[in-house]
């Protein structure tokens, strides 16, 4: 029987079932000698039939030290996933093919520098080879000169970009570290000497390149947990997207700022910040939100604004102040739900305001907006905006908001819908104030300036009646704004 089956069955089996198998007993890693100090790591041939491989994951990250035999990257061939090991000691200077992308066998996928100083030279090599493609001999700076500044000068524009992004990274990291110094000691860390963070929090922090020392944990015993990291990443990357419309705003301002043109037809992977935005946006889906809209007449507010504009008062500060005053009467709208089980009643009323800055957006926070007078608040606002433009905001200046404002009125947007930033209870989308023909209660028709506001809130803690009452109070304050200047 089996004999018979052998002769009739086996050859008839489709080739896909009888694929040849990988027979490699070790993983050939070819690291070609380009010049004395910087080596290229190539996509290895993991089987005889492999023509290209996909990078499953980089086990090492850029700048990390490698020892001979360390697994550097996981490559998926047509057969299996294989670890590719380094044949040399050195530093992983640059990753040329990102995770998830494919490269043909033999194509360089990363650069290995022998010493830390040569990482910059290796980066230069990438940019020069990509900017000057036909250059037959990509030898950057003389091999003997491990001087990063000379090699950086050579390749021109693209290096400039890469070094800029590096320094930007550093500045954002150092700002987090600065925040740590200012922040209070957290209890699980022996007076701040070490960080107590859960495994997943550490994993996320590594993924986003975030320094955990800057964080105050909200977990048991003050431990840093995943959601703390997520919140910090969102804030640090200036990516606490408050509204889909706000994201749009940044797009609009971009071309006018003479920014880089978008390559049509290309697929551009997210940057770390955009990843954070994406993650936050997806996370927001887990919050049961609802929306309540209200139309507010702004004639009185506009009149007041005209009057005190000369004293440096801005409309943003006025709206923030009005919102804060309304929140004083409706503290529930200033609360949030952090764990799905409890109310977090915030002790301060901190109004975060979404601001589009070049290449992203950030939410500077007006702390204690209910207590500070409108003039100080306006000055504070100006200072925060300047700092935000210079990327010098401290963490507590952008991640302590308890209620968010997003205003697209300046674009003529009359109404829009904001997405609730994770960790807060509500966000208000403010549209443009426009002359509107309205019927009044006494049966007449008049022209009034009106704006529409639309609040998105977490229904686990804030209910419809809460928002309705809050909006009614807000409308009263705005329609009779004498309290704003008190």
């Amino acid at each position, binding site marked *: *029987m*089996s004999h*018979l089956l052998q002769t009739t069955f086996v050859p008839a*089996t489709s080739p896909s079932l*009888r694929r040849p198998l990988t027979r490699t*007993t070790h993983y050939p890693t070819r690291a070609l000698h380009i010049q004395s100090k910087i080596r290229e790591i190539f996509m290895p041939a993991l089987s005889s039939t492999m023509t290209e491989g996909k990078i499953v994951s980089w086990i090492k990250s850029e700048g990390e030290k490698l020892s001979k035999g360390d697994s550097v990257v996981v490559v998926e061939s047509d057969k*299996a996933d294989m670890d590719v090991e380094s044949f040399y000691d050195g530093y992983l200077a640059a990753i040329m093919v990102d995770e998830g992308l494919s490269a043909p066998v033999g194509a360089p996928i990363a650069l290995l520098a022998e010493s830390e100083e040569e990482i910059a030279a290796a980066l230069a090599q990438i940019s020069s080879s990509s900017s000057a493609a036909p250059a037959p001999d990509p030898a950057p700076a003389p091999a003997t000169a491990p001087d990063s500044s000379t090699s950086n000068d050579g390749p021109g524009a693209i290096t400039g970009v890469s070094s800029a992004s590096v320094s930007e990274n550093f500045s954002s990291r150092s700002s987090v570290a600065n925040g740590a110094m200012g922040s209070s000691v957290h209890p699980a860390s022996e007076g701040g000497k070490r960080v107590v963070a859960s495994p997943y929090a550490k994993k996320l922090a590594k993924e986003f390149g975030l320094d955990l020392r800057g964080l105050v944990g909200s977990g*048991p*015993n003050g431990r840093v947990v*995943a959601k703390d990291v997520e919140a910090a990443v969102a804030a640090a990357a200036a990516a606490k997207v408050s509204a889909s419309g706000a994201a749009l705003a940044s797009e609009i301002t971009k071309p006018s700022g003479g920014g880089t043109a978008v390559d049509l037809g290309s697929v551009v992977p997210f940057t770390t910040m955009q990843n954070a935005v994406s993650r936050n946006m997806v996370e927001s889906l887990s919050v049961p939100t609802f929306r309540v809209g209200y139309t507010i007449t702004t004639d009185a507010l506009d009149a007041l604004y005209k009057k005190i504009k000369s004293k440096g008062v801005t409309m943003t500060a006025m709206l923030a102040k009005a919102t804060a005053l309304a929140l004083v009467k409706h503290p529930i709208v200033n609360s949030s739900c952090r764990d799905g089980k409890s109310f977090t009643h915030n002790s301060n009323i901190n109004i975060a305001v979404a601001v589009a800055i070049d290449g992203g957006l950030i939410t500077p926070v007006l702390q204690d907006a209910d207590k500070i007078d409108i003039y100080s608040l306006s000055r504070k606002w100006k200072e925060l905006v300047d700092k935000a433009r210079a990327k010098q905001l401290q963490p507590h200046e952008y991640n302590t908001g308890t209620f968010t404002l997003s205003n697209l009125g300046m674009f003529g947007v009359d109404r829009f819908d904001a997405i609730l930033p994770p960790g807060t209870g509500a966000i208000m989308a403010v549209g443009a104030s426009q002359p509107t023909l309205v019927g009044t209660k006494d049966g007449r028709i008049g022209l009034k300036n009106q704006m529409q506001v639309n609040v998105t809130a977490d229904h686990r803690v804030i209910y419809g009646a809460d928002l309705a009452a809050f909006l009614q109070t807000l409308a009263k304050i705005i329609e009779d704004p004498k309290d704003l200047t008190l």
Partner: protein
Amino acid sequence: MQASISLSLSSSSPITRSDCTAVANAYLCTPRSLRFCGLRREVFESKSLNSFSVSTRLVSCPRDSSFKKVCAALQSNGTPSKGGFDYDLVIIGAGVGGHGAALHAVEKGLKTAILEGDVVGGTCVNRGCVPSKALLAASGRMRELQNEHHMKSFGLQVAAAGYDRQGVADHANNLASKIRSNLTSSMKALGVDILTGTGTILGPQKLKYGKGGSGDTVITAKDIIIATGSVPLVPKGIEVDGKSVITSDHALKLEFVPEWIAIVGSGYIGLEFSDVYTALGSEVTFIEALDQLMPGFDPEIGKLAQRVLINPRKIDYHTGVFASKITPAKDGKPVIIELIDAKTKEPKGTVEVDAALIATGRAPFTQGLGLENINVQTQRGFVPVDERMRVIDANGKLVPHLFCIGDANGKMMLAHAASAQGISVVEQVSGKDHVLNHLSIPAACFTHPEISMVGLTEPQAREKAEKEGFEVSITKTSFKANTKALAENEGEGLAKLIYRPDTGEILGVHIFGLHAADLIHEASNAIAMGTHIQDIKYAVHAHPTLSEVLDELFKSAKVKVNSSSPVVQPVAV
């Protein structure tokens, strides 16, 4: 099917049984809906008996088998043979090892008693493999339902999967009690005397049992098997309170699911619990004394397993460190674990977690056995035995009529190994020499996906090859190329064959992938039967099944000799 039947015919089974033939036959003849395409009924019947008698014997884990109950009606737990003993065989310990030995002893016509000091079923059934499989089954489903991407790729939508901790815990508990009662009734049905109390050996062929003290009963037996098993090993400095610092015994009750749990030890037990806890929402920190996680696994399999089971999950780890001191949570303080370097003993900081699970291995449970009465010295608690499980005394001499099987001898701490050892011992005492090939005993770790192995790891094989001067070849197949695995959206996996290209001998097989624990037996049986690759590669596997992963594995091996099996008489279809 046909292939396996003819194979079992050609290879003489090591154990033959005649008494159950009629039963097996009756069982097989019962009308079933199976249609073996082109298979002639009479061929099936006449050839199958041998193969079935083999399979009934080697199955080891607790199972309720309709065979045995029928067998019991045919035979009884006979009277003791000559010599004036109360029993032919007394087994101390009613775990899986003792149970396997008892059933086989009855089959061999021995008058058998089994001693149990706690509950029938031992570690495996009550505090080990069985309840942990229940937890893993529940948590595996939980993991799958939570994996939106995975569900989406099937076109399925699942909204807010959740679990009820008590319900999961009950499932584990119910399973354990069900298996326990199956085990008990299977022994009762066969007429095995189940004696309650702890056993102490008084001298050669003589022991007492009971609650201790004067009320104990003294019995004599021609042969005695020690099968007392093991308990969780708790290293020094670790305070187990059963609440925040626990062993597998407590963890299986699943009394709470901590937000963050440290697991000390990353072997089978630790790995399986990390699978359970992460699926139920915990974050896990492994503390491993060796430099690599998952020591004991083939390095390549370990690497892949780490990539799939550790890295993408909410798990971090400290390797090369000992937990020198663990203080349970109290007064609002978390569990505090002090770490020291495994080599230099220097402090390596502390870890504060909500709970700690001690999974550092198991220690033999051999105290109070009265081994001193027969001049036997345990080694780190283990009873020293030779390759036939005969106990060796302090002078290096064999103690007549005394055997030790299972975790208590430490040879291979697996339930099914204990059972196989027990059967081997019964074979010997009933007059047939038998040596168990431990390299043919498979092992499995029931993570998602599973890990399984039999025989040598690659480093072990290479070391042996160097010593004995033969060549070693390796071949691998991926689950990515398997239709069934892809249909299940579970293409992550690897099967690895370590073999001798000159003879076609299988040295080891390691599988990581969907249902790996079930797939390993084709390889372990081949090793046990001495089947070589050049023969087994012609066996046919149903398509599409996961078993084709092994089929491809065998077919991809490059063996320098040709098939040795004789041409089977052709069967017309």
